[in-house]
């Protein structure tokens, strides 16, 4: 049975966002997309 289009809420908005897409979308510029580094450039 097809469900009415507006009768479901899609938590992903129809886009399969990977970790890196999410972080980029937020304007984050993390090392390799999702690694947090210390200010001196070394892995924190």
């Amino acid at each position, binding site marked *: 049975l097809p469900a009415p289009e507006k009768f*479901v809420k899609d938590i*992903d908005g129809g886009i399969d966002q990977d*970790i*890196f897409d999410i972080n980029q979308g*937020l304007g*984050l510029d*993390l090392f390799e997309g999702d*690694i947090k580094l210390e200010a001196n450039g070394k892995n*924190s």
Partner: protein
Amino acid sequence: IIGDHKRWPHTIPYVLEDSLEMNAKGVILNAFERYRLKTCIDFKPWSGEANYISVFKGSGCWSSVGNIHAGKQELSIGTNCDRIATVQHEFLHALGFWHEQSRADRDDYVIIVWDRIQPGKEHNFNIYNDSVSDSLNVPYDYTSVMHYSKTAFQNGTESTIVTRISEFEDVIGQRMDFSDYDLLKLNQLYNCTSSLSFMDSCDFELENICGMIQSSGDSADWQRVSQVLSGPESDHSKMGQCKDSGFFMHFNTSILNEGATAMLESRLLYPKRGFQCLEFYLYNSGSGNDQLNIYTREYTTGQQGGVLTLQRQIKEVPIGSWQLHYVTLQVTKKFRVVFEGLRGPGTSSGGLSIDDINLSETRCPHHIWHIQNFTQILGGQDTSVYSPPFYSSKGYAFQIYMDLRSSTNVGIYFHLISGANDDQLQWPCPWQQATMTLLDQNPDIRQRMFNQRSITTDPTMTSDNGSYFWDRPSKVGVTDVFPNGTQFSRGIGYGTTVFITRERLKSREFIKGDDIYILLTVEDISHLNSTSAVPDPVPTLAVHNACSEVVCQNGGICVVQDGRAECKCPAGEDWWYMGKRCEKRGSTRDTVIIAVSSTVTVFAVMLIITLVSVYCTRRKYRKKARANTAAMTLENQHAF
């Protein structure tokens, strides 16, 4: 990452900060269960250890690589990061893993197309040489949960990573579960020889039938066979695809009288957690009245033969297909699992068969949605399917909707529906987490990659029209009719259009024998609502109340001990907070200063006392000596 100092202890202390979304908290705990099933890594709520992982809702999903010995090490699970594979990915970073495509030999396996990468983002495609990163003698893993997808940092629509073997182009970037090689590396890195919650798996391929034994007190035996004339034609593990293999255990009821039994017992098993989930496939080609009984034989002191306890009776087993079954066990002492086939009344030309048994110390799913002839459904145009109605343990009625209309993705949604308990339930429905899992039907639970999504009912959430999203379905839903003619109301669905791609759905063993299984669990997670020291198992109401009156300072966490709220204060290697509310800071340096200054003070005081004593004594004796001299003079005067 190379360096033993980067490793964590096998049991990692963690804190789930209050900032986390409720759904994320539940997903993180589920991710920990995956670690426990497949590795020796365990997680425990932080109780003052020097280093711990603080999971919080920051901006985005990120982690550091390895144990950085910072005391509190942050790991962010932000908005849209509340997917189980994302949590697994970030924790693998924390455990010491870089991305798969950054390993030293990656250019042998993938081509980085530099001119398709967004300008300025090229640094995300680093390679680490083998003095920084060790691939632990494991082959390059296209299926790693740590691999970028082909679209990572793309400028346009073309792939930034092209696999040298084209078949892997759509494999890279999977976000379902650990791959086999992820586990091999993790277990090697942490010297794991066993996992915490796995107990046994058996597909009956070997003649030793995994150490299972036939009971002596019964009237028949189970037989290890590869096919039965009246069915099944093949086993479940290999589905008859491999010549001279594919075995299962069969209880032939066609040659037995009513009441005959055959008992097959597992080897001895030693529980650690006190709860288990037994999973197996069952096929019936005998009488509809034949039944399978599941027992446990538990060995307690003084009971040499063990105590046999009936755990489940499986009656009216459908004829002619493999069916998945789950049985929840709660055994705390050494035990065996016993499969008893019982010949029922009526004619039989076959019997009962079992295959692909898995036993683990995990929670069983609450419900199974078995979809047969799935290829036909998947191939149909504009098709979608609703599950039968189910009830959660709290009494909420629900239904799952699988959306197959897209040519690339399969969607899945959770709907509350009107049910028999609605008058007694709380509305809008508060904090029920629905977990929907597409089962990978690999015979061995350790080699499965589950595809899972969870959603949580937030009672404050509203729809576009202002009504509460999770309000009573009869109030906010639409009317529909079950196939049997019963009318009901269905609330708005909540889920995702991108549960899995069609391509991945056809991979692995998600579809087996043209069947798929969606495993469903709906559980109350309201206990995760407002305490950051999330104890596992569930805290009591008293925990929440006692701590609600206590505010710990400087990142301290309130826990209840002996019924009293106490602050557990954060500490690093050479610093700590102390006091009733963690209001005072201490450090090794302070201690040294206090010790030195105390010593100097004591020395000074002692010196002053000594000097004063010497001075006073000398003065006293001088006075005395002077007095004696005067007396002597007088005596002499009188003498003359």
